[in-house]
């Protein structure tokens, strides 16, 4: 199965990368009011047991892929 993990800086966490991207986009003339920069991780996982795979992905995020103190994550499980 393919899984996509989206990791984002939590709301309220200073995101200087996002601020730099926003300011650059504005310099290009795009009226951008906010930008946050996160990370995408594509994985090949699991043996077809969706519930089990989802639980494993949760643990992967908690233990390594995100730092729960500063980042939130979203899991999208594909075919």
């Amino acid at each position: 199965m393919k899984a996509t993990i989206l990791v984002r800086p939590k709301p309220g966490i200073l995101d200087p990368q996002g601020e730099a991207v926003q300011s650059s986009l504005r310099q290009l003339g795009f009226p951008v009011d906010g930008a946050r920069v996160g990370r995408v991780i594509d994985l090949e996982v699991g043996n077809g047991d969706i519930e089990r795979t989802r639980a494993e992905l949760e643990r992967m995020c908690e233990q390594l892929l995100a730092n729960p103190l500063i980042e939130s994550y979203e899991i999208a499980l594909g075919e």
Partner: protein
Amino acid sequence: MSGAARPRIAVLVFPGSNDDRDAALALEGLGAEPVLVWHAESSLPEVGAVVLPGGFSYGDYLRCGAIARFAPVMDSLGRFAAEGGLVLGICNGFQVLCEAGLLPGALRPNASLSFVCRDVRLRVERTSSPFTSRLEPGSSLTIPVKHGEGCYFADDELLAELESNGQVALRYEENPNGSIDDIAGVTNAEGNVFGLMPHPEHAVDPLLGSTDGASILGSLIDAARERLLTAA
């Protein structure tokens, strides 16, 4: 034991560490016997303290310090710390200790997004720790920083806990990286693990512009010597 006069202190070496030899040199000059320990070792030698040096362990992949936590030697380090062993993390070493859960909080990219490399002035907040015993409360230190991701973060609940336990040992007088509450260095709740972004090993000789780092490393050496003597 024979090593107590010059207490042995391990300096861990990860792929991408680059201040390991400077840390060893500084410790040696201050009266310790440094032992470089490669990350793939499954155990620590008998030492009075362990230093995690600065650098870019594992290329800073994923997040700074996130991968070093899985180095084989880290299991032994976790046990060493749990038994009250003294552990000092400098810069990347601080990041590794936070990621490994041995220290509270997290380090984020500098608010300026710029790499900062300069002397900073630090205010000593706590002297009742094995890492700051040679310091005067409220005194100022000049020690260099050099990092791109040194912006310390703790949420409100954790900050309150750090403050009430007296875990904030050092603060920046002028914040170089956006760290919350100007925090430059914190200990764990037990006080035997300490991490800081500034580099005491780069401030141990007048030729380097400051010798203030020697009082932090010297405090650690005193405490390591005492531990080894007690254990002997």
